[in-house]
């Protein structure tokens, strides 16, 4: 009898727990997703009707703001630069980090530990803003596309993750390739790299997202408008429309056709265009790299 009552109370408290848990998580879900939803409905609303406020549904429907935004000065160039830096930067990072991580797993290499430490220290130690700025200038990377893709080629955190992964692969695979006469590079390209796909994909997503989002190198060291990234374009647009009175900012940045749009709807639309690639690509890969991070986290 007592036992039955006990189970009953557990069931009831279970129900209460679930109710509270689901409610709080749903609130969090809304808080996270609503801003994205808001810019979406704003960007497809009729520009002038949207000014009096959109909330749950788009006010009218119009793709005019997309048409106007695409015609914005420099948007096409910026999109190309952003895509190029993402693709090339990611490729370089993946190749360099994975090959270096492979080399560092080889016990026959002299000074292996010291070399590994030497690279990892860079994760914790950096010279600071002004020395970085002056060094990049010294290398002639100012106003140079290479500035976007070279400095991140070797990243300590990625190297740790890949190295941990390679170390738990069965050594027999590599040995058999070695007996067949394969050298280190062949073993890496034919055996290790293909076997490391899960972690490589994880790193590739990290690197790609990082490249897509980074803008401070652009902000500080690149003045050439042809090398501008989408992020900086958005930043410039936002800081202009905040500082100067809204309409005059619109006049500064927009072509004649775009002038019929409100700056708000242009802002929403650029934000949408810059966010879209991430929103599309990310959910497809998320499960993949949650696994990757967990594998890396096992060792800490």
């Amino acid at each position, binding site marked *: 009898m007592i036992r039955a009552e006990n189970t009953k109370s557990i069931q009831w*408290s*279970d129900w209460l*727990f679930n109710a509270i*848990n*689901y409610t*709080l*998580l749903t609130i969090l879900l809304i*808080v996270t997703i609503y801003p*994205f939803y*808001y*810019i979406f409905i*704003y960007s497809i609303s009729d520009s002038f009707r949207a*000014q009096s*406020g959109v*909330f749950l549904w788009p006010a009218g429907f119009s793709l005019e703001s997309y048409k106007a935004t695409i015609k914005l000065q420099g948007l096409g160039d910026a999109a190309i630069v952003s895509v190029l830096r993402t693709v090339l930067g990611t490729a370089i990072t993946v190749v*360099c980090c994975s090959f*270096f991580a492979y*080399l560092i797993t*080889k016990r026959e290499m*002299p*000074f292996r530990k010291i*070399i590994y430490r*030497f*690279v990892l220290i*860079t994760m*914790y*130690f950096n*010279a*600071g*803003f*002004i*020395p*970085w*700025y*002056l*060094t990049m200038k010294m290398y002639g990377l100012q106003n140079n596309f290479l500035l976007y893709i*070279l400095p991140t*080629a*070797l990243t300590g955190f990625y190297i740790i993750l890949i190295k941990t992964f390679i170390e738990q692969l069965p050594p027999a695979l590599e040995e058999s390739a070695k007996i067949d006469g394969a050298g*280190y590079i062949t073993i890496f390209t034919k055996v290790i790299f293909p076997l490391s796909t899960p972690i490589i994909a994880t790193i590739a997503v990290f690197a790609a*997202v990082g490249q897509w*989002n980074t*803008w*401070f190198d652009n902000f*500080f060291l690149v003045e050439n408008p042809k090398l501008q990234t989408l*992020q900086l374009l*958005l930043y410039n647009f*936002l800081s202009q429309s905040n500082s100067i009175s809204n309409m005059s900012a619109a006049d500064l940045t927009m072509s004649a056709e775009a002038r019929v749009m409100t700056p*708000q709807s242009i802002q*929403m639309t650029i*934000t949408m265009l*810059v*966010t879209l690639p991430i*929103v599309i690509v*990310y959910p497809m890969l*998320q*499960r993949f790299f949650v696994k990757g991070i*967990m594998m890396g*986290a096992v060792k*800490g």
Partner: protein
Amino acid sequence: MDITYKKEKVVQIKRRKYNADGIRLLLMTIPFLLFVIAFSYVPLFGWVYAFFDYKPGIPLSQTAFVGLEHFREMLHDRDMGRVMINTLALSVLSILFAPLPLVLAIMVSEVRNGFFKRLIQTTTTLPNYISWIIVFSLAFSMFSSEGAINTAIDRLGLSDTPLNVLGNADHVWLVQTLLLIWKTIGWNAIIYLAAIVGIDGEQYDAARIDGAGRLRSIWYITIPNIMPTFIVLLLLAVSNLLSAGFEQYLVFNNIMVADKIEVLDLYVYRLGLVTNDYPYSTAVGMFKSVISIALLFMINSLSKRVRGESII
């Protein structure tokens, strides 16, 4: 005799092969090492600027060596005190909220519905992948005077004066901390979720047989099991005390909140590139790096002593 000779020969061959391979490997790492030197170690030479009265345009050799002058300057710099308070306030606030991702991870792990679980995980980690510029744009579209929140308040007739969330100096620290939580909570929860998944299920079964409800098994099993992970991450956060986050405060900076949002990194940038005071700016940056490294080592040895495990 014959046999031992053969054995020696085998060893010798093996040895030589080992060396040749080792050297080949070493040669292959050289380009990478040069790369690391060029991009991470060469900039360290820039620290010499902190000891000279350098002005842009004049070669360093023609400028006066001033020793620790620029470091002494820091002690009398009023701005420096204000900037340190901002930096520490923002860091400490974010450390105070550090248990939130852990709570989220526990809440998510208690969800039985697979679809909802995946939905919440995917959604809450999304903000981690967008830049601070986009976060700013989203925040602006929510909180500005024509933004969603003020529109809603106006429509519902709750208040006549629009809320000024992003331009309010009194609440800027809290607002920025909440934005940081919004952006990072889901991502930080992933690591705890990984730790929770790794907990042996038998512990929960045993607890259930003993009559423990959900809350009790969370309290007595889940939390103790993920505590080590929490402590490691907390310690790492402490070592980043002076790096409050540059991009966030740069994009959210405006005239109304400028005084309270200027963190150390932002100050270094303003001194260096806006006022062109390279030596002092380098000195401040150097001060920051040195303190951060000292904190990291202190915390590492603390972690070694307490948990027998280093974190770096």
